[in-house]
Structures are given as structure tokens and as C-alpha cells.
């Protein structure tokens, strides 16, 4: 039923198709690209070639094929987005469910912290905490150096769970007074059993929506960090969408429009598609949507 409603959402279907296509191209990157991520286009004067048959999306300053770099960069960004979204949603579910279900002091403290962090300028908090984590020896031993992918995923998850926990908490607050929870409690179910078996499965709709928005949040978070030079440095010559967009900053003044346009376009298309899918999911899983029809 929810699926049917989702399928009725034409824009979301189109977006899923685009996103699926992109993911396929990224997963099969050795087959869909003609050059390696660090490989130059084989033509003697190969820097700043405009888009042509030789290099579909043009080349950059040292003659690397922009299309291949874009595909590899998207791969890194999607990895970061998916991993940190899953971690954020996991933590957010646990914290939100416990806070909503137990209430009291724990709930107050968690929600105060969440409010404060959500109101704080994201980039400032991200940078300050990034450096702080980077200076703690044992922590970098576990999650890697400040420029590693693991570190960025950890950092983005550290900030990502709060929005999710708020959504889950709201859902749990609404659900916990319902009869079936009361019945479960009366029949002697433990708190963790009720959360795991009743509360979270019944909140799956909002959780899915939160997951999609977390992916967008993490991808654009990584891109913002990379844009200002505080992002990951994924291996020799490897790249991410944020790094590619960061190169666009310099390319603007010189008029090499293809260096600026294509990475920006891919980033916008990815976040637009995921946003649309998330919105359609919300419409599809929200039971109130049927009331009006």
C-alpha cells in the first residue's frame, strides 16, 4: 500500500531512476570510465580541454579526464553519505527511542543538547569539533587521521544523529500511550523488548525518511568541508565531489566553465533526487495522508 502510493509519485520515480542509473555507473566505474582517476588524457596538449569526443566533460589543469574523476568522486561521496547516514540513524534511533520512552531527566538533557546543536551554525561546530577530535591521540588511533575517510564519516555521524533522534522521539511519544504498547507492558514485556519489537518497527516510515535526509546531509557536509579544504584526502589523486566543487572555485575567474559546472550539477542532482524520494516516502508512509482522500 505504501509502495503503491510511492509509485504514484511520478517525480520520485523519475528521481529513483536517475539515482539508480548514477549508482550503477559508480559501482561499475571501471567499466563506465575510460581513464583512471589519476590518469591523464592521451593527447599532447591535454590541460583545460573543453568537452569533446576525447574527454566527454573536458579535462582539468593537469589534463585528467573530468568525467572519470567525476564518477570516482561520486563514489567516494556516496560512500561517505551512506555510511554516516546509517550510523546517524542507528544512534538516533537508540537515543530517540530511549529518551522518548523513559522521559524524565534523561529526555530533558538529551533534548536540550540536541536543540543547542541544531541551532548552532553547522560549519563552525563541524570545524571546531573536527580539530578537537583530531588532537585526541587515542581517538585518531581508532577513527583515523583527520584527513581519512573514516574520520569524516565518524565526524558527520557525530552531528547527524541529533535530527534523527528528535524525529524518533516524537514518534515514540505519540506511540507509547497506545493500547498495544500498554498490552505489551501488561503482559510483562521488558522495556528494550517493547522498543525493539513495537516502537521502532512502527516508526519505520519516519525513520526511512530521516535516513534519506541524513544521506543528503552527510554528502553536503562532506562537500562543504572539502570545499574549504578541511575534508578528506582520499588517497593519492583520488577525489570526492566536494574536492571537485572546490576546484570549481578557482576555475570560475578563468572561464573554464566545464570544471565548475559538471561537479556542481552532479552534486545538486544527487541531493535533489534524494530529497524528492524522501518527500515521497514521507507522503507514502504517513497514515494521515489518507484521511483527506
Amino acid at each position, binding site marked *: 500500500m505504501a509502495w503503491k502510493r510511492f509509485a504514484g509519485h511520478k*517525480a520520485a520515480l523519475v528521481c529513483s531512476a536517475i539515482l539508480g542509473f548514477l549508482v550503477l555507473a559508480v559501482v561499475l566505474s571501471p567499466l563506465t570510465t575510460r581513464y583512471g582517476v589519476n590518469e591523464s588524457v592521451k593527447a599532447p596538449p591535454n590541460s583545460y580541454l573543453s568537452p569533446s569526443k576525447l574527454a566527454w566533460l573536458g579535462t582539468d589543469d593537469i589534463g585528467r579526464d573530468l568525467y572519470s574523476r567525476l564518477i570516482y568522486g561520486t563514489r567516494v561521496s556516496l560512500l561517505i553519505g551512506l555510511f554516516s547516514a546509517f550510523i546517524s540513524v542507528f544512534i538516533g534511533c537508540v537515543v530517540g527511542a530511549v529518551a522518548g520512552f523513559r522521559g524524565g531527566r534523561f529526555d530533558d538533557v538529551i533534548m536540550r543538547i540536541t*536543540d*543547542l546543536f*541544531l*541551532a*548552532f*551554525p*553547522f*560549519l*563552525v561546530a563541524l*570545524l*571546531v*569539533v*573536527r*580539530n*578537537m577530535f*583530531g*588532537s*585526541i591521540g587515542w581517538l585518531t588511533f581508532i577513527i583515523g587521521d583527520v584527513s581519512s575517510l573514516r574520520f569524516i564519516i565518524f565526524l558527520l555521524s557525530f552531528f547527524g544523529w541529533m535530527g534523527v533522534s528528535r524525529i524518533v522521539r516524537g514518534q515514540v511519544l505519540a506511540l507509547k500511550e497506545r493500547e498495544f504498547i500498554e498490552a505489551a507492558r501488561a503482559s510483562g514485556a521488558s522495556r528494550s523488548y517493547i522498543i525493539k519489537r513495537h516502537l521502532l518497527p512502527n516508526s519505520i516510515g519516519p525513520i526511512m525518511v530521516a535516513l534519506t535526509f541524513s544521506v*543528503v546531509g552527510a554528502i*553536503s557536509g562532506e*562537500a*562543504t568541508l572539502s*570545499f*574549504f579544504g578541511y575534508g578528506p584526502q582520499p588517497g593519492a589523486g583520488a577525489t570526492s565531489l566536494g574536492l571537485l*566543487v572546490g576546484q*570549481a*572555485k578557482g576555475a*570560475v*575567474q578563468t*572561464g573554464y*566553465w566545464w570544471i*565548475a*559546472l559538471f561537479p*556542481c550539477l552532479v*552534486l*545538486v542532482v544527487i*541531493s*535533489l533526487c534524494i*530529497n*524528492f524520494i524522501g*518527500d515521497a516516502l514521507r507522503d507514502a508512509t504517513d497514515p494521515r495522508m489518507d484521511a483527506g482522500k
Partner: protein
Amino acid sequence: MFRFALRRSAWAIPTLLLVTFLVYIALRMGTDPLASYMRSNPRATRSKIAQYKELNGLGSNYVTGYFSWLKNFVTFNWPKSIKGSREVWPELKDAIANSARLGAAATAVGVVVGLAIGIFAALRPGGKRDVAVNTAAFVGISIPPYISSILLQLLFAVYWSKWFGNTLFPTSGVYPPGQEGFDLVLMIKHMALPTVVVAIQVIAVYSRYMRSSLLDVLNSDYMRTARSKGLSEFRVLMRHGVRNALIPVITIAALDIGAIVGGLIITENIFDYPGTGKYFLSAFGNGDFPLLMPLMVIIVASVLLFNLIADISYAILDPRIRLD
């Protein structure tokens, strides 16, 4: 009402102290103020270093260090920046003034346009214009500020001058280099593009808030009552619909300060606009603790202040809210 506001404000002060303490720890661990001082001033004498440590509260103990920093901070005995040993306050003041101007312009444009579009969309839910507004809002949310800045710069800095041979909107600074004194037209021209970038985000967010809030209100019983009293449709919409729909929107607006400041940081850096965003990133890059701490205090204080305004305005605007 008054007691509620008072109690809420009283809470803000311990919160401010706690958060600035956390920021102090985070900055001390993250930027290593002592090492960055030595890096910028390799020939500093021992007494200079001792004075720097003393003024910034950089003793080995974080708690006593914080309080000695706090004492210097509230008595305006502020340390000078580590690079070039400049006074902090004049620089910070200019940065805040520039940012506030940009932020206020963008918020004003964004909120007015966003609310108007939201109302426009809510009048016929599911209609053509509703779908168009919704789609446009999604596109607006999905374009990060650095991308819209780059595209606008590409358009105006590179192509406009190529096509038309003049510069309509300059893409950096507040004034052209060498400009002295105040010039409103030049200032507006310089602010136009960054304002648009920040306003796009605001418009996208607020049109959606307003639409959903107004839709909730339009379905309520008092709207029908207002109509059956014989009020004109416009009056019903404005007096009863929009006015009630604004309540949640105002609350969200006050909470959105963080998002707007965040947007400013990115936009200012790309447009080379001398506001707090540029100030923050250059100070952060240098590990300039004396420049960073006052800015962080101001950011935290304004976040708390706007949170407070949100709570109190909500309580004033909506008589159904219980104040306990």
C-alpha cells in the same frame, strides 16, 4: 507571562557559561593556541609568551584557565591577535556589522518572498502552481550556497562582462578597492549577489513552512465561522488564516539563526565579503585563539538569545500554550 520570560532568561546565563566552557576546551585542544602563537611569532621573548598565556587563560588546568580567560573577557582586557598583534574588538565589530547587514537583507528578502510564495501555493493545494512552488522549493533546498555562489559568479563575473561589456554586480568585497567613505549604491551592488545566495535558501525553507502551516489553518473550524459571518474572502485569509499560520513560522524563524549564520560563512568566503564568516575561517586557519573566542561567545549568545525569543514569542502569540 513575565515570570515565565524571567525564568527562561535566567537559565540562559548558566547555559552560556557552560557552552563557552566547552568551546574553550574544544578550541584549546583543536587549535593549540600556544603552538600557533609560537609559529606566528618565532622570536617572541619568554615574558611575551607568559603574558600571552596569562591573558588567554592558557594555564595547564582547563577549569582555572577558563575562569581567568573569563575574567579578562568580561573586564575587556582582551588579548591581541597572534598574527600582527592587532586589537580584536574593532575588527570583530566591523565583521559583525557587515554580516548583520548581509544577513538582515537576505532574511528580509527571503522571508517576505518565501511567505508570499507559501501563501500563493497553499490557496490551491495540489494545483499547478502548488506543484511548481513545491518543486522550486526542493530545487532551492538542494542547491548548496557554495554552488549557487559559483554559478552566479560564473554568470556575472565572467559572462556578463563578456556579453555586455560592463560589470553589473561585482563579485567580491563591499566596495571596489580604493573606495573611501560611504556609498549606498555601490554597497547595494556589492551586496546583491551574496544576498541572493543566502535568500534562496531562506525562500526555499519558508515557502514550505508557510504552505504547510497555512494548510493546517485553512482546514480549521474558525475559518468556516469567519466565512459564515460574511467577511470577504481576502479578509478571512489575512485576518484569520495567515495570522494564525504565522505563529509556528515565527518560532521556526527565530530558531533558524544558526542556518543563516552558516549560510553567511560560506557565502562571505566565496564573495570575499569581510564579515564574520571570513573572520572565522581565517582566524580558525591561523589557530588564532584571541580572535576566535570573542566571536564564539557572540555566536553562542545569539543562538541562545534567539532560542529565548522563539520560546517567548510562541507563548505570547499562541494563548493556548501553557507556561509551565
